[in-house]
């Protein structure tokens, strides 16, 4: 075998194909390459709407937004209606099994067999016994702590620290006669539906909680 026959990779720019079919195939391939490059370079974004102010419904927005920020995504949460409670300086959110029939009622203390037992509370009791909601909240807080799950306050602080944009609904403040100074100063903007849609229109992931 002579040296001249050895295969040497050709690094010169390839001339464009001249016939239509090859040209189209070339174009398709380049387009795929370009799109893949752009997708890889894109910063992902998450836009969540938080509408509930109970402890159980506070977890999903704060957990997902803080995690997205840790992944390098741009994340925002739009707090509207009861969701605005989650932005109060005085964060006193509660949880109740009343109207929440799937909520397990389990003791955060005692022997393991007792902890695993579900103790359903009739609505008649949950709705009428004074202090029941506070008790259920305290039990949930203890459960959260004993399982190493972050508190809402802790997750909110992490969101603030990792630059999750906290957006608050201006209309809700007027509707429920809140004052802006009841809320944390880290709120990025007070906005309405129009501004929110502009904010969310390019989000890769958009969730309603």
């Amino acid at each position, binding site marked *: 075998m002579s040296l001249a026959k050895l295969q040497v990779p050709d690094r010169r720019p390839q001339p464009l194909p001249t016939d239509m079919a090859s040209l189209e195939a070339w174009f398709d391939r380049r387009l795929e390459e370009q799109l893949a490059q752009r997708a890889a370079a894109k910063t992902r974004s998450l836009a969540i709407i938080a509408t509930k102010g109970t402890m159980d419904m506070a977890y999903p927005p704060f*957990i997902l937004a*803080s*995690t997205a920020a*840790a*992944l*390098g995504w741009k994340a925002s949460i739009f707090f509207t209606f009861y969701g605005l409670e989650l932005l109060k300086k005085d964060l006193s959110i509660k949880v109740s099994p009343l109207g929440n029939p799937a909520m397990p009622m389990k003791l955060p203390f005692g022997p393991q067999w007792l902890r695993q037992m579900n103790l359903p509370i009739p609505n008649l009791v949950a709705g009428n016994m004074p202090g029941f909601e506070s008790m259920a909240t305290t039990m949930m807080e203890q459960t959260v702590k004993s*399982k*190493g*799950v*972050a508190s809402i306050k802790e997750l909110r602080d*992490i969101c603030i620290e*990792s630059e999750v944009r906290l957006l608050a609904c201006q209309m809700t403040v007027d509707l429920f006669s809140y004052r802006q100074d009841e809320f944390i100063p880290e709120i990025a903007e007070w906005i309405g539906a129009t501004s929110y849609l502009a904010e969310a229109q390019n989000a890769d992931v958009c969730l309603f909680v």
Partner: protein
Amino acid sequence: MEANQTLDARGLNCPLPILRAKKALNGMPAGDTLKVVSTDPGSVKDMEAFCAQTGNTLLASQLAGSNFEFLIRKS
């Protein structure tokens, strides 16, 4: 498992091990390694997804006794 820095995330649950790992990596120079020790079984898949998304390299992921150990190299 030798690492430049170790993060004890034992007893913490989702998403705290990931958030703490991210925070620790932020303060480290590129190329350094971080060892994360956790007890959260969910962190096994989450740590893989975290590294895949952030471009850091998951050098090892293993069970050590009742702990999960991860070795991450910062990109």
